[in-house]
């Protein structure tokens, strides 16, 4: 990336940190609003807690994300096979999006236990819909003349899918995966919040609850920052994958 492109967002960051620092000094209530330096220090002093939390949350969120991606693409593919299947399944896919995950999470924990399994399931629920929806959109919008070209040559559905419809849908699949990248981490944190102190070693969400109870605001902030960065890292990874797959031929990456 060019240096010129990094300067504007970097400037915003510096401005933000500066006003935060000044605000923290003026109000002088370190247990409510620690300075950026205090938060930075926590990354060193509580390195072990943060890393353990990050590791556990990463495991849950990453598993959830991968499962949601595979499941989402599979469900969308099934829906794209015919109109009746799409009409039968799509309303339930929407419910995935409209269900208040925070409210359903306790039920999931009740059913699947105070384990990483529950956290993964909550992460899947929240990350699934954007992938289903975007993949379906992509599979349904194959250019008409290309469909006619394959039909003219009597291509079977299987070959048409792998040589035409699926590759044509990749830009949409990547778009869906970008939306779900952050969501999968949010889902994992929600799951960890519900499990809370029920689990022995906790991910970032569990650590946030502990730190908040101890009024360790700097640690809370450090943990939030870590969780945010995790989602961001997922996003960047998928974006790079998208660039790698699309830059040679698709407008979105040129």
């Amino acid at each position, binding site marked *: 990336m060019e240096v010129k492109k990094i300067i504007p967002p970097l400037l915003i960051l510096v401005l933000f940190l500066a006003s935060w620092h000044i605000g923290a000094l003026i109000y002088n209530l370190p247990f409510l609003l620690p300075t950026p330096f205090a938060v930075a220090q926590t990354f060193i002093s509580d390195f072990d807690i943060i890393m353990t939390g990050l590791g556990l949350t990463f495991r849950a969120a990453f598993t959830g994300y991968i499962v949601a991606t595979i499941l989402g693409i599979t469900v969308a593919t099934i829906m794209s096979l015919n109109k009746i299947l799409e009409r039968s399944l799509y309303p339930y896919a929407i419910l995935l999006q409209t269900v208040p995950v925070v409210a359903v999470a306790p039920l999931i924990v009740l059913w699947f236990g105070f384990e990483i399994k529950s956290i993964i399931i909550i992460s899947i629920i929240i990350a699934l819909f954007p992938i289903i929806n975007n993949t379906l959109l992509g599979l349904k919008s194959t250019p008409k*003349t290309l469909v*006619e*070209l394959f039909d003219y*040559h009597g291509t079977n559905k299987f070959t048409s899918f792998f*040589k035409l419809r699926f590759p*044509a849908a990749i830009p949409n699949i990547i778009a869906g995966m970008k939306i779900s990248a952050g969501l999968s981490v949010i889902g994992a944190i929600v799951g960890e919040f519900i499990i809370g102190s029920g689990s022995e070693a906790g991910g970032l969400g569990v650590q946030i609850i502990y730190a908040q109870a101890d009024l360790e605001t700097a640690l809370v902030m450090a943990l939030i920052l870590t969780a945010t960065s995790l989602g961001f890292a997922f996003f960047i990874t998928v974006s790079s994958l998208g660039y790698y797959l699309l830059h*040679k*031929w698709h*407008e979105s990456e040129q």
Partner: protein
Amino acid sequence: MIEAHNVSKHFDDVQALAEVNLDIATGEFISIVGPSGCGKSTLLRIIADLVESPDAVIVKPNKGAFVFQDSALLPWRTVQGNVELLMELEGTDNKRSKAAVALKQVGLNGFEKSYPHQLSGGMKMRLSLARSLVLDPQYILLDEPLSAVDELTREVLQEELYDMWKKNKFTAILVTHNIAEAVYLSNRVVIMSPRPGKITDIVNIGSSLGFKERTPDIRTTSKFSKVVNEIAGKLRTWK
């Protein structure tokens, strides 16, 4: 020989085609002209078996190709990948060498690794034609293939298409809006009327034009413009 008999088509309540009958001799170049909405593209798609017409009787050779208005290239494949596409779908042997010959014929050798978005409109259409030629088709159906390119490129492509037809000896059915294009390329020009689409006239270009070979300079002759104007006059009847 291509035969299309009793071709009718309804879209809901609108009758798009009414009992069209058309016989095309082997190796003949036929153009279909007519105003928008006369069903000429639909007729071509019924011949191609892309659109249903329950009562129609279509007889055509086994090996054919269909060339679309927008080139219909796969954007994620290179020129090489695109020229091999139809051979993959048809299970043709010796893809590499056939692709190389066809790309050379249309002047796209050296562009094998390029992607469609890097090509001009004319080059895309050449690629689309090359991809069809590698199948060694007995007939090619062309649906307004040159309508997306600029006027100068269009005339060059008409000449190239004519040379391809001469060299590869396929039967051709071309749907076009451009009367001069139809006259330049065809043995016969089929004129259709709108709603319901019917064949109202068939002009034998070979006899009325009197040129054995079509070369670019015939476009400026008075005989050529006379034939173009005659067809234009017949088309203007429905305005």
